[in-house]
C-alpha cells in the first residue's frame, strides 16, 4: 500500500512536472562530421551537405536549417536538387536513390524522405551494369537520367522512380551512331558526366570516362555531335549560351569544344594544362562563368603539378590576368558558384565561390577585389583546434555583449562585407529570448566566444592566451607571406589548424563573470590568467605570481611537463579580454578546477596537488593548501606522457608482428613432419582460443581506500557567503572538493571596499568534511534559508536576483559521483541524501542548478539540479529535497567524449559534442527551446526554367 502513496506519485506534482520538463534534441551546431557530398539549388538558394553517416543537412539564410537521416546510415555520394522544386535526390554508396522533399506543415517546412529506389538491371547482368556514376535531373522535372558504370544511361520517372526501359540509352546504341573510325578502339566505358543543353532541353551531353563526349538528341535518339578527347575525362561544363562546353581531364588539362550545326565532329578550340608543363594531377571539376565585361571566370579544382604540389587541396580561380589557387586546409569535397543574376540573364556574373572541404566551409567573395573570404554565419568549424573545455553563460547583459562583438569585429576586418550568398528560406522562429554565450577552450591556447542564443552558433570573438608566453613558434610567422612571382599562386584559406605548437597552452577551465567582464582562464601547464575587458588595444606588463602547491611536502619530483616560460616586459594586446595577472601553479599540473568571485576580486584554482586563492585586486596569493596524499605517487610525478606511451605501444605492436612472422616462418621451415606440426599448431590455437573465451571481462570489487591515487585532485571550487562558523554571522567562504571525497571549507575575511587595497585578505580553514564513501566530489552548493541556491556574485548588486535569505538556516549540498547529500550549516550534520550509484550503478558526471519555468504559467519557476551520469542519462533532481523528478536517456553510454563535453545552461538547456566538430543542443525545459523553425516556399516557376539546370547542381561528377 505504501508504494501507491509515495510522494513521487502525487498527481498535482505529476501535472506540474509535465509543464516544467520536456526533453528535446533541438539542433546540431558546428560543422558536420565527415561530409561527403554537396548540392546547391540556385532556385531555392539552399545548400545541402551529405555525410558519411547518411545524414543530410540543408542550409539557407541564417536560421534556416533542415536535417534528415537516411535509415541505412550509408555514405551520401551525390546530392541533386530537382530544378524549380522543393525536392532533392540523394545517391548513397549502396547505389540507392532517395527522394526528399520540403513540405510545409503547421507553419514550418519539414524535410521528409518520400521515396527510395535501387536501380535493377536485367537478370544476370553484373552489378556494375546498374552502378550509378552520374545523375542528371532533367529540367522537365519529370525524369532523372542515370549514367552507370556499364556506359548505359537509364531513365527513371519522378517521383515514382519508374524505369522507362524504352528510353534507356545503351552504349551500343551510341556507338552505332558514330562513324567507324572514332569508335573502333574504345568502348564507351562508364559515364563520367551528364549535362543538359542550357538552351535546348532535348539535348544532353554524355561524357564517357575514356574521353568520348557525345551530344545526344533525346527526341530522335541519335547522336548529333561527338567529340574525341585524348585524355581520361573528369567532368564537363556547358557555357551559358550553349555554343561551347569545357571538359576537364585526368592529366590536369581542360579543353574547350565548339558546338555548331555545321561540324558533327569538331576539333577542340583550345586545350590547356594550366599548371604544366610537368605532369599535373587531374582537374576533377571545372566552371566557365561568363561575365558582362567579357572576361570569363574559369574555376577548377585540382590540376596542381604532381611532384611539388600534388598534396595540396586547391581550387584555382582565373579571371583575366588574375589567378589565385586557393589552398585549403583539408580535402575538397565539392564546390559550387553562386550568382545573383536572373536565371534568364545572358551572363552568369558569379558572386561567390562556396567550397566544402572535409573540415570546414569556405566562401570566397568573387565580386570584391582581392577575393576575400566571407565569414559563414553557421557551419563553424568548432574543431579548428581541438576543443578542450566549454563554459556557458546565460543571459549576457547587453553592454558586455556589445563590447565582445565590437572586440570581435576588429578581428574580422579581413573578411568580406558581402551579405551571405546562400539565403534561401525564411526563419520564422521567435527571436531568442536572451543573449547566451558559449565559450570553448582549445588546445592551441585560444578561447572562442560563440553566440549561442539561437540556432546559428556564430563566432563573436577569439581570444588567444599565447601572447603571454614564450613558445617555440613565432606568432608572427605568416604562412601566407608568399612572393609576388610565386608559381603556382597559392593562397591559404580557412581556419582549420589541428596542430598545436605546444600542448601546454591548452585551455582547461574557463570562468566568465558576465557583470564585471572579468574572465579567468586556466590551462594544461598550471597557468591561470585573470583578464579584464578593454575596448582599446593596450601594451602592458602581466603581473606574475607563482603558487607552490607542494609547500610543506618534501622530496617529491615532478616528472611531467615544465611550466610555460613567460614573456618579459610589456606585451601588446588587442582590444578585448586582456590578461593582467598570471598565476603559475607549481608543479605545473593541469588546472582541474577554477572559480572567480568578481565582487571580492578573488580567484581560486586547483590542480591534482592542491588549491590556492589569489587576490587579483592586490595581486597577492592569499594561501595555498596541499591536498596530496603522501602515498599518491602518480599525482606527484605527473601524467604519463602521451608520446612515451605511444612509442611503447608502437614498439609492442612491432614486436608482436615480428613474433608472428618468426613463428610462421618456423612453421613453414619444418616441412618434414608438416602434418604433425600443423596438428600441434591447431591444437595450440584451439587452446589459446579456449583460454581467451574462458577469460572474459571481469571487474574487481574493491572498496575505495584512502590510498587510491589522485585523491588530492581538486574537482570543484565554490565561493559562498554563508554561515560557516556560527549561525549569527555569515562570512565569505571558499569550498573545495577533492577526488578522495574530502570537502575543505575556508573562512575568508575580505576587507571592505574602502580599505580593499590596504588590508590583506585573510583565510583560515574552518571545516573539513570527509565523506565516508570517498567518492569524488563533483559539486558544492549552498542553499539559503528558503532552499534556493545562493546567487552568483554581483547578481544581487545588478538587481537581477533576489537577495538570498540570510535569516533562515543555510544548507550545504555536496554532490559526489555517488551521492547527493545535504548538510546543515554552520554545524555540519547530515540532513538528507540521495544515493545514485548504490541503487543504479551510475555515477554523476556533470551537475548544475537549472531554473525551470512552467510553460503554462509565466510566473512559476523552480530551481532543480540537472545531473548527467556516466550512463548518458540526464536526471532532474528537486531542490532542496533531493527527489528524483524525471530521467531522460540523452547520450549513448559508450560515447565517453560526448558525456565529458556536456555543458548545461542555467535555464535547462545543454550542449554536448557529437563529433569533434559538432555540438548537439538539447533542452530539458518546456519553456526554453531553441530549435530551427523556418519556411521554404517554392518561388513561381518560370516558363523557360530549363536555364536553371546548368548551375552547380547540374554537374554530375563522380567523385573518387
Amino acid at each position: 500500500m505504501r508504494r501507491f502513496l509515495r510522494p513521487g506519485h502525487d498527481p498535482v506534482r505529476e501535472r506540474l512536472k509535465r509543464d516544467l520538463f520536456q526533453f528535446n534534441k533541438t539542433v546540431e551546431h558546428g560543422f558536420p562530421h565527415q561530409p561527403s557530398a554537396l548540392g546547391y539549388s540556385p532556385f531555392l538558394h539552399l545548400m545541402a551537405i551529405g555525410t558519411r553517416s547518411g545524414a543530410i543537412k540543408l542550409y539557407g539564410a541564417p536560421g534556416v536549417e533542415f536535417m534528415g537521416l537516411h535509415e541505412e546510415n550509408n555514405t551520401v555520394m551525390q546530392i541533386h536538387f530537382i530544378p524549380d522544386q522543393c525536392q532533392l535526390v540523394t545517391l548513397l554508396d549502396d547505389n540507392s536513390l532517395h527522394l526528399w522533399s520540403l513540405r510545409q506543415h503547421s507553419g514550418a517546412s519539414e524535410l521528409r524522405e518520400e521515396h527510395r529506389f535501387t536501380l535493377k538491371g536485367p537478370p544476370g547482368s553484373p552489378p556494375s551494369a546498374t552502378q550509378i556514376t552520374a545523375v542528371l535531373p532533367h529540367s522537365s522535372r519529370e525524369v532523372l537520367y542515370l549514367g552507370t558504370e556499364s556506359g548505359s544511361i537509364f531513365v527513371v520517372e519522378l517521383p515514382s522512380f519508374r524505369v522507362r526501359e524504352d528510353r534507356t540509352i545503351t552504349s551500343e546504341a551510341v556507338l552505332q551512331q558514330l562513324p567507324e573510325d572514332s569508335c573502333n578502339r574504345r568502348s564507351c566505358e562508364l559515364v563520367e558526366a551528364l549535362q543538359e543543353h542550357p538552351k535546348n532541353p532535348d539535348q544532353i551531353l554524355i561524357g564517357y570516362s575514356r574521353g568520348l563526349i557525345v551530344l545526344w538528341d533525346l527526341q530522335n535518339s541519335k547522336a548529333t555531335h561527338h567529340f574525341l578527347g585524348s585524355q581520361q575525362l573528369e567532368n564537363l561544363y556547358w557555357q551559358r549560351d550553349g555554343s561551347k562546353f569545357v571538359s576537364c581531364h585526368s592529366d590536369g588539362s581542360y579543353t574547350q569544344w565548339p558546338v555548331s550545326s555545321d561540324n558533327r565532329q569538331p576539333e577542340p578550340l583550345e586545350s590547356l594544362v594550366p599548371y604544366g608543363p610537368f605532369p599535373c594531377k587531374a582537374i576533377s571539376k571545372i566552371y566557365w562563368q561568363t561575365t558582362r565585361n567579357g572576361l570569363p571566370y574559369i574555376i577548377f579544382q585540382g590540376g596542381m603539378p604532381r611532384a611539388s604540389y600534388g598534396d595540396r587541396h586547391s581550387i584555382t580561380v582565373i579571371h583575366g590576368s588574375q589567378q589565385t589557387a586557393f589552398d585549403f586546409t583539408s580535402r575538397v569535397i565539392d564546390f559550387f558558384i553562386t550568382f545573383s543574376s536572373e536565371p534568364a540573364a545572358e551572363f552568369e556574373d558569379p558572386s561567390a565561390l562556396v567550397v566544402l572541404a572535409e573540415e570546414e566551409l569556405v566562401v570566397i567573395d568573387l565580386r570584391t577585389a582581392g577575393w576575400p573570404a566571407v565569414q559563414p554565419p553557421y557551419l563553424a568549424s568548432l574543431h579548428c583546434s581541438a576543443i578542450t573545455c566549454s563554459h556557458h553563460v546565460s543571459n549576457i547583459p547587453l553592454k558586455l555583449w556589445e563590447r565582445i562583438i565590437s572586440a570581435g569585429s576588429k578581428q574580422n576586418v579581413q573578411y568580406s562585407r558581402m551579405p551571405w550568398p546562400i539565403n534561401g528560406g525564411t526563419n520564422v522562429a521567435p527571436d531568442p529570448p536572451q543573449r547566451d554565450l558559449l565559450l570553448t577552450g582549445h588546445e592551441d591556447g585560444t578561447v572562442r566566444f560563440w553566440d549561442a542564443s539561437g540556432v546559428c552558433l556564430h563566432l563573436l570573438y577569439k581570444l588567444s592566451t599565447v601572447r603571454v608566453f614564450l613558445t617555440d613558434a613565432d606568432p608572427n610567422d605568416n604562412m601566407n607571406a608568399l612572393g609576388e612571382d610565386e608559381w603556382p599562386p597559392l593562397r591559404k584559406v580557412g581556419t582549420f589548424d589541428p596542430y598545436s605548437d605546444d600542448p601546454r597552452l591548452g585551455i582547461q577551465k574557463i570562468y566568465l563573470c558576465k557583470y564585471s567582464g572579468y574572465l579567468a582562464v586556466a590551462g594544461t601547464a598550471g597557468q591561470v590568467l585573470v583578464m579584464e575587458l578593454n575596448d582599446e588595444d593596450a601594451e602592458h606588463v602581466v603581473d606574475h605570481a607563482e603558487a607552490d602547491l607542494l609547500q610543506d611536502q618534501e622530496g617529491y619530483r615532478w616528472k611531467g611537463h615544465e611550466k610555460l616560460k613567460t614573456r618579459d616586459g610589456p606585451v601588446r594586446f588587442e582590444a578585448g579580454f586582456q590578461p593582467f595577472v598570471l598565476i603559475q601553479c607549481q608543479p605545473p599540473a593541469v588546472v582541474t578546477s577554477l572559480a572567480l568571485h568578481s565582487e571580492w576580486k578573488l580567484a581560486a584554482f586547483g590542480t591534482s596537488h592542491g588549491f590556492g586563492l589569489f587576490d587579483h585586486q592586490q595581486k597577492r596569493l592569499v594561501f595555498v593548501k596541499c591536498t596530496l596524499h603522501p602515498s599518491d605517487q602518480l599525482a606527484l610525478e605527473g601524467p604519463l606522457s602521451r608520446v612515451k606511451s605511444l612509442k611503447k605501444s608502437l614498439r609492442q605492436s612491432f614486436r608482436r608482428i615480428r613474433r608472428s612472422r618468426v613463428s610462421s616462418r618456423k612453421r613453414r621451415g619444418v616441412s618434414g613432419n608438416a602434418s604433425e606440426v600443423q596438428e600441434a599448431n591447431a591444437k595450440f590455437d584451439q587452446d589459446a582460443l579456449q583460454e581467451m573465451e574462458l577469460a572474459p571481462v571481469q571487474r574487481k570489487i574493491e572498496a575505495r581506500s584512502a590510498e587510491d591515487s589522485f585523491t588530492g585532485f581538486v574537482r570543484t571550487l565554490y565561493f559562498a557567503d554563508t554561515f560557516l562558523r556560527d549561525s549569527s554571522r555569515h562570512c565569505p567562504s571558499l569550498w573545495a572538493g577533492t577526488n578522495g571525497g574530502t570537502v575543505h571549507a575556508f573562512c575568508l575575511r575580505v576587507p571592505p571596499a574602502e580599505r580593499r587595497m590596504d588590508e590583506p585578505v585573510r583565510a583560515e580553514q574552518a571545516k573539513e568534511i570527509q565523506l565516508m564513501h570517498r567518492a569524488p566530489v563533483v559539486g558544492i552548493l549552498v542553499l539559503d534559508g528558503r532552499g534556493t541556491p545562493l546567487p552568483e556574485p554581483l547578481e544581487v548588486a545588478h538587481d537581477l536576483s533576489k537577495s538570498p535569505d540570510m535569516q533562515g538556516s543555510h544548507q550545504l549540498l555536496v554532490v559526489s559521483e555517488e551521492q547527493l547529500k545535504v548538510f546543515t550549516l554552520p554545524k555540519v550534520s547530515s540532513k538528507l541524501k540521495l544515493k545514485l550509484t548504490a541503487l543504479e550503478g551510475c555515477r554523476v558526471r556533470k551537475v548544475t542548478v537549472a531554473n525551470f519555468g512552467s510553460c503554462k504559467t509565466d510566473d512559476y519557476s523552480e530551481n532543480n539540479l540537472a545531473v548527467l551520469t556516466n550512463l548518458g542519462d540526464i536526471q532532474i533532481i528537486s531542490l532542496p529535497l533531493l527527489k528524483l523528478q524525471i530521467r531522460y536517456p540523452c547520450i549513448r553510454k559508450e560515447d565517453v567524449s560526448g558525456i565529458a563535453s556536456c555543458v548545461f545552461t542555467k535555464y535547462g538547456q545543454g550542449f554536448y559534442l557529437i563529433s569533434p566538430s559538432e555540438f548537439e543542443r538539447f533542452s530539458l525545459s518546456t519553456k526554453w527551446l531553441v530549435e530551427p523553425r523556418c519556411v521554404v516556399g517554392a518561388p513561381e516557376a518560370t516558363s523557360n526554367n530549363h536555364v536553371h539546370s546548368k548551375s552547380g547542381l547540374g554537374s554530375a561528377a563522380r567523385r573518387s
Partner: protein
Amino acid sequence: EFRRFSLERSKPGKFEEFYGLLQHVHKIPNVDVLVGYTDIHGDLLPINNDDNYHKAVSTANPLLRIFIQRKEDADYSAFGTDTMTRKKNVLSNVLRADNHKKKPHIVISMPQDFRPVSSIIDVDILPETHRRVRLYKYGTDKPLGFYIRDGSSVRVTPHGLEKVPGIFISRLVPGGLAQSTGLLAVNDEVLEVNGIEVSGKSLDQVTDMMIANSRNLIITVRPANQRNNVVRNSRTSGSSGQSTESSLPSSTPNILANSLQGEEESDEEDIIIEDNGEPQQIPKAAPTSESLESLTQMELLHESTQNGFLPSSEMNLNHSAGSISMEYEVQDADHKSLEEDGTIITL
C-alpha cells in the same frame, strides 16, 4: 571457593548487576572475571550479556552452576559444546590453570570482542535456490576480494527456457573477505545487490553498485553449487529462529545486533574536522540523533572497529566460536545445518 546464593528467577535483572553481585559475593571488586555456567547438556557456556544471562537463569533447575575465572588466566577453550563431558575435571582445570603443562591454546577473544564479517540473511523469504549474503567491510585493510563477469544463465519464461545475460562471480581473491566467508563461490550468479535487481544492468553498473555499497554489501546469489542449500522441512526451521538479525533483530543475540547497528551508523556518518582540528563523526540532523562520539584521530574510527581481528587461517576455531554465540538458536536443528545457514560466523 564456592559460594551459594539465590536469585529471583522471574526477575533476574541485568547482567551488569549480576556481575556486580558476583564480584561482591566473592569479594573481588576490581578483578576482571569470566563467568560461565553449565547448561542442561553439561556444556560450559559463557555469561557475558543480558541475553545469555537470562537464558542461564531460565535453565536453572533449580540450581545454576556458575564458574568464575580470572580474565588473565582464563582458559578460553574451556567453553563450548561437550566441554563438560570431555573434560571431567574441568573444575580443577579452570581453577588451577597453571597446574600442568598443556599445549598452549590459541587465545580467542570473547564473542563481544568479535564482529560479524558475513551472514546469510532472509532465509525464510528467499527461494531455497538463492542465498542472500551480507558482507561487512570494516576499515580498509582487508579487500572484499572478488571479481564479477558477464555471462548468461537460463531462465524459465512464458516462452519456455530462455538464455538471459547475467552477472557471475568470476574469481575469489585468496585471503579476501569473500573467500574467507565461504558463502560465495566462483560461478555463483549475482541476482541482487542491496535489494536491487541486477538484471538489465551492465557489468560496470553492477561493479559501481557493489563498490558504492561495499561497507555493507548484501548480495543475493544463486550458488553454482546447489547441494549445500538449506533444506527447510518444516515451519519450525523456517521460523524466526532461523532468520537472523536483519530480518528479525529482536530474536537475535544482542551483542551482534548492537555491534551491527553501530557499524551501520558509522557507515552513514561522514567525518567533520572543525577548526579546532578535532575530527568528529557527523551526526544526523534528525531530532533522534545519536550521541556523537568524539574521536581524537580519524584513524581511531578504524582502530576501534578492528580490534579482535583474526587472520583467516583460524577458520576452524572461528566456527566453534560461532556456535557458542548461537547457543540457543534452534535446538532441534542438527549441528551441520547450523554451521551452514543460520550461523553468524564471526571472525
